[in-house]
């Protein structure tokens, strides 16, 4: 049997339709005008022991809602959810005993206490035996030098140090399931890679099942073999990560800032690019932030440099940036049938 099993899982929220202005706000006091938001809408999946699953999607797609249902904090509106043969919502305390959770923006460490005191409190809370406690911390000591931070109060840690300590805290009771919600948010490259090493190592050693929610496609590439993509409450992809990395690996977006940007510029640009590279080139022109025009290129069809050279030659270009494809466009590609 799978460790985690969801079947037809849904979570709907009732949200008040707010009206505009002061009068509207006053009317809202007595309003019964609700709409239903389907945060998670009839999803099914099964996760085996020892898997690392990347769970990605744009903001508001339903990732956190799913995570909260797994922890038992949210009650599903309908459907079945079982974690290690426990229904999380019905038995919250028993469920979280075998779970470690990290919400990237929150810490479970005690703000004013030295790091090691938080570990000791956790040892009491989970009744962790001396052996497990020492071996888990020893493992962390080998991977990242944590002991040097033990006596530092949490509020004096840098974001990266704090995240490493939080990670140690989540793994301390050697749980079967770890839920990581944005563990690398706001961290620099070197800390990110440390965190990835730790996660991979712990998964190897204990066969801990890990669900990783993230915006950073680099995280999933580095850690997961399986990927689930959720958008608007529906799982739109569940399978091997390779097919997805191939997809977003070849796309690059050129962000171009153009002098004397006028109204007709976008259309002009589109027309010229189609003229030059043909319709089959699949070049997408968008306007995502003021002053910048995004040109997304499929490198398998047209070399990025050609497009860049062409743009530089035909338009008064002020500035250029090259970025990897964003989560939103990956999701868009999947909708457009890229994986079918």
């Amino acid at each position, binding site marked *: 049997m799978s460790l985690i099993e969801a079947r037809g899982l849904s979570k709907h929220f009732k949200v008040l339709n707010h009206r505009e202005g002061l009068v509207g706000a006053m009317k809202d006091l007595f309003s019964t005008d609700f709409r239903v938001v389907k945060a998670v809408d009839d999803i099914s999946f099964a996760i085996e022991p020892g898997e690392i699953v990347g769970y990605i999607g744009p903001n508001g797609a339903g990732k956190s809602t799913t995570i909260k249902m797994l922890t038992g*904090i949210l009650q599903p509106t309908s459907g079945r959810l079982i974690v290690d043969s426990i229904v999380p919502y019905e038995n919250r305390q028993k469920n979280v005993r075998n*779970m470690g959770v990290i919400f990237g923006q929150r810490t479970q460490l005690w703000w*004013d206490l030295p790091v090691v*005191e938080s570990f*000791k*409190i956790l*040892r009491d809370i989970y*009744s962790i035996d001396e052996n497990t406690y020492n071996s888990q911390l020893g493992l962390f000591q080998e991977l990242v030098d944590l002991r040097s931070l033990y006596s530092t109060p949490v509020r004096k840690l840098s974001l990266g140090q704090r995240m490493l300590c939080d990670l140690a805290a989540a793994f301390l009771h050697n749980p079967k399931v770890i839920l990581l919600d944005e563990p690398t948010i706001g961290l620099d490259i070197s800390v990110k890679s440390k965190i990835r090493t730790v996660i991979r190592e712990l998964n190897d050693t204990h066969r801990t099942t890990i669900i990783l929610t993230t915006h950073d496609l680099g995280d999933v590439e580095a850690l997961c073999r399986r990927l689930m993509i959720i958008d608007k409450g529906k799982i739109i992809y569940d399978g091997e990560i390779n097919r997805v990395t191939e997809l977003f690996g070849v796309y690059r977006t050129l962000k171009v800032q153009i002098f004397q940007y006028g109204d007709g510029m976008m259309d002009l640009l589109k027309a010229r690019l189609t003229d030059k590279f043909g319709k089959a080139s699949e070049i997408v022109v968008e306007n995502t932030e003021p002053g910048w025009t995004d040109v997304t290129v499929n490198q398998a069809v047209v070399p990025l440099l050609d497009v860049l050279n062409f743009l530089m030659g035909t338009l008064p270009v002020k500035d250029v940036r090259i970025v990897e494809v964003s989560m939103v466009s990956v999701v868009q590609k999947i909708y457009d049938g890229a994986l079918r």
Partner: protein
Amino acid sequence: MKPYLGTIKGTLIAWFIYRFSFFFTLAGNLLYMTLIFFLWKSIYSGADTIHGMTFNQTFIYLALAGSLFILFTPGTDWTISNRIIDGSLIVDLLKPVDFQILTLARTTGFGIFNVAVITIPSLLVLFLGFRADMKLGIGLLFFPIGIMLSFLISFAIDFSLGLTSFYTESIWGISTTKTAITSLLSGALIPLPFFPQSVQNILRLLPFQAIYNIPLSMVTSPNLSVLDYARALGVQVFWVVLLFAFCRWFYRRAFRVLTVSGG
């Protein structure tokens, strides 16, 4: 039990780190004692007893009430409310422990520290500095038990107030109202015997006087029979049980708001 003991210990350590704020609270409390000393001295000028209480009894009653007020105001309602509003409540809910007992453990850590750093020094100043003349009696043995029960009653009221944040988003109004009502109706500001008899009869039916008046009476009238004290403790136990039962019920209800409509 172990999870909660660990939490108590952690809270204690954290409070020791905040020690300076406590020194100021202690200084403030001593100032308050001086203030009520002179205030009631002038009220008592020429009178031996007012409403059956001597100056000495009134002073001890109110000076102790002042120190207990600090002990019974750990701000649990604010803490819970803040955790609910900024969402950090979720961290508590991810622990395999009961939220109410966890909160009680945190409050207890505050209480223990407070007794050591404020209540006991204040008592020393009261009896050595102001030379308050306290009669000894069996009531003094019941006083610490009374205080612990008061602490629990006070906690239960704060806890359920904090939970109202699930519905109201801000508890500023409710919380200040609660402080005003408790101070006035419990004997914390004016000794209960000073109220008209008819008002006293009503007040004795409310939980507030069980927080301050009951333990304080044990000190000001320490020579009643054991049965009297047992009855007083009985009233406190009654309120502890009733209010904790209410907390449970209310917690379940409020928690449903979270689990069903999200946080």
